[in-house]
């Protein structure tokens, strides 16, 4: 029996770092283990952030892939908890160096992307304006902002993310081996694997549609306006008091709603792809949310899998509704044929992430659900060859 495929999900606290080690062949058709590294990052706001964790993880990756290094690095989307690891490694003293052959980035990370897709440019500009306003609002009253909001802002910080993505785009390999991928692209020329095939299921190249859910920037620094014992705003004379405080509260909660909308748009640009290897189908989902799943279902690219990396850290909106989930994790599979699910997550960063009912739903359809929570350094899943 040949070696199994090994999927190693690192505990980076809140983020993703996944090393997939695949028995393959070299140019001389000799057996060889090749490696795919997916999304090394975590988010630093709150307790979940920890640069030491990333250094430890990248050291482990370096040791496991050896001198040959990583054959393919995949950045699913431009969020700090998925992108910052390689830059952190490069900045260690001494740097943690992991050789990388090819790099795939989501299509919207291409430098000329927003010139080619002006609708996406307009929506990005709008989201940046909203982000700026929320950031100003938090800066004006840092004590009032709660941790989930700070985490969202950190995760979506356009300047910090840009530095990390630039590093992935410019520093990991040579320019000709950096590819911006989307559904429909022929992946065969874009990687060195010989026996393993890859298919990109999402996103489509023009992702402007995913920006459609932004909410209004009805704020200023309004979250600070919650009435406190020391005062806060009071309604002018003659103004309906209950309506006034209702409005103040709504404007305050708008910050979180908008931050979530920005976050969601980026999540839905996640590269979702399958790895096909010796009769197995492994699905990696990044942080794709429901809208991306719906698009994939509509495009007819979803089919049953043998392994699924649970999307978006096990949130309620990273796993689709049952009728779409049926396409990848059919409910009526015999137990012996049920797939394995793995979730990279961390408790208490966001409310309801991971989402217990979602994990329960996955447990009903999978032989097991592996989680990085409480893992020392990583959890590993092995998938045997079927052919």
């Amino acid at each position: 029996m040949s070696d199994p495929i090994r999927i190693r999900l690192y505990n980076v606290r809140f983020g993703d770092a996944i090393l997939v080690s695949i028995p393959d062949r070299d140019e001389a058709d000799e057996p060889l283990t090749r490696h795919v590294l997916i999304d090394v990052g975590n988010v630093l706001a709150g307790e979940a952030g920890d640069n030491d964790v990333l250094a430890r993880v990248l050291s482990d990756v370096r040791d496991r892939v050896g001198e040959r290094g990583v054959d393919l690095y995949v950045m699913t989307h431009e969020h700090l908890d998925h992108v910052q690891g390689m830059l952190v490694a490069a900045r260690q003293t001494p740097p943690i160096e992991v050789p990388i052959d090819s790099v795939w980035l989501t299509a919207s990370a291409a430098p000329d992307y927003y010139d080619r897709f002006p609708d996406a440019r307009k929506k990005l500009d709008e989201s940046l304006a909203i982000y700026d306003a929320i950031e100003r609002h938090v800066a004006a009253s840092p004590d009032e902002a709660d941790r989930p909001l700070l985490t969202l802002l950190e995760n979506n910080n356009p300047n910090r993310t840009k530095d990390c993505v630039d590093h992935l785009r410019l520093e990991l390999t040579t320019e000709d081996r950096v590819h911006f991928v989307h559904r429909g692209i022929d992946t065969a020329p874009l990687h060195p694997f010989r026996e393993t095939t890859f298919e990109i299921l999402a996103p489509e190249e023009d992702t402007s549609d995913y920006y459609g859910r932004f909410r209004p920037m009805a704020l200023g620094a309004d979250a600070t306006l919650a009435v406190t014992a020391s005062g806060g705003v009071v309604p002018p004379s003659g103004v309906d008091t209950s309506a006034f405080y209702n409005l103040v509260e709504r404007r305050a909660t708008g910050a979180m709603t908008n931050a979530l909308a920005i976050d969601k748009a980026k999540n839905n640009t996640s590269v979702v792809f399958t790895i096909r290897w010796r009769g197995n189908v492994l699905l990696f989902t990044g942080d794709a949310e429901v809208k991306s799943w719906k698009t994939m279902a509509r495009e007819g690219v979803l089919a049953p899998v043998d392994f699924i990396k649970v999307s978006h850290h096990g949130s309620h909106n990273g796993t689709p509704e049952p009728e779409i989930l049926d396409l990848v994790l059919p409910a009526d599979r015999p137990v012996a044929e049920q797939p394995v699910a793995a979730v990279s997550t961390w408790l208490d960063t966001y409310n309801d992430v991971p989402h217990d009912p979602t994990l329960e739903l996955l447990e009903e359809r999978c032989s097991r659900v592996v989680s990085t929570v409480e893992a020392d350094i990583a959890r590993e899943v092995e998938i045997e060859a079927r052919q």
Partner: protein
Amino acid sequence: MKIRLPYMIQDQLTADVKGLDPIQSFIWSSETYQHEDFLDGPVCSRVAILDFDEADGSLHAPIDLDRAGAEAAYVVNQDPSDRSFQSVSAFATVLKTLNLYESPDVLGRRIRWAFDGPQLLVVPRAGTWKNAYYERGSHSLQFFSFPGGDRSSMIHTSLSHDIVSHEAGHAILDAIAPHLYDCMTPQSLGLHEAIGDLTALFGSLESRVLRGQLLDQTDGDIRGINAYTQVAEEFGMYTGRDGALRSLWNDMTLAGADDPNDFHDLSQVLTGAVYRLLVDYYDQEWLELSGGGRPDFRKSGQALWQASQAMERFSLRGLDYLPPGEISFADYGRAVIAADAVSNPDYPWFRERFAEILAPRLDVPASSLAFTEPPGDLFGGPVELDGLRTSDWHAYHFAENHRRELHVPDAVPIQVEPRLAVTKRAFRSGGRADYHETVLKVSWEEIERGTRDRWVRFGTTAVFDESGNPAALVTSNPAVTGETHAAERDAFVELLLDRDLASTTDPTADVDATLDRGALRIAGTGHRLHANQAPGAPVPAREDR
């Protein structure tokens, strides 16, 4: 008491281009309008300005009301760049719009907001965004600002007369027809947009200066594109469009709409028809005032004033006749035509001409829009109005006993709205006439089959004269109108679900979608009503519902 309230009658940019003075005054008088008390703010019993600072969220101090002179006034500079002026301008525009609707020759009654509270809260500088909206859940109108073309100055939507009166129009229509806020028929939301745009139009036409300058610039010919027909021109210019958001001068039809789900565009089918009627009446009046020969420019001002007042009455008075629930443009046509027939029984020109203009745009026979006077004995004789008006029990009892006459299906639960008792003013051939009406609205829900079965609300409005005789009956029951809009609702619901604008699983979705006894129940589609009409554009924060 009199109070002078300065306000902007035209976008600054448009005013500059056209050489107009954009600032006018609205004189509120206790002799003319319904009772109000004014406080620093500006604040009155039904409208209040909340000037939140967009940078730090603090609340700017209320603007003092100087009561010393014959006319009270808020202490502000006549400077559109001054935020105090912006507050007073927005306040004045909203109040002026409210008074327009409440005047005896339009609704003839005091408006009660759709939300549970006395005041509409107005936030003139809500933040940075290319948008403005009415939000029922927060009882508010919110006006945003955004950088102008050179990014050195901010464009404040609260300074746009069109946008402020349009959004106030949403709030007022929500008060008149609250079910529209939950509708699934794109035409229902299109009606909201159309009434918003018509509100802006009539608000502009109330300005003598603007009317005069417009006639000067057009030599009295108001056909074609002009300052009135272009909605929110400045906003349109700065949001990547060639010009205004929408145009009232158009030949649009429902069948010709590029996207039947785009209710902003769809609204132009209706506003185009109303504007065409205005132009026809104006031309007719102008000619008549000129003595029948060549139009005399000196008479154009009077003709336009008369035409605009007549059209204001014609197109808005019938809103109280709308059946509750889902509304089509044809339903609107029937409602305003019925209201006109009751108001001016001896002068059919408006309703006949409107049916001629509107019917081909909707692809329905003009006869389907015509008014049919209900038989005097429809309800077995005059109705006892006191009980109907004051007692819910009496009203439900009446509706239950007259399901057939009210076109209510058997065996469905009914909902009876609070009755309206109004005194309206008509200008008939014999002179001014005040008349009383009692308006009864009954609605019910049915499961409509489709890609996804859903609950849909239909209704009937019955109007009684002061003697209790039926004066008009308008229903949206498809079995009676012969018009079904199920396919339109089907497509719209699928669009909402497909774009995650509505979700049965995501509680943060803009539109509520729940499963109720095997059918989808949609609520809150009114959240899709906002100034920025780009596909997938941002929408107001979700209300707690």
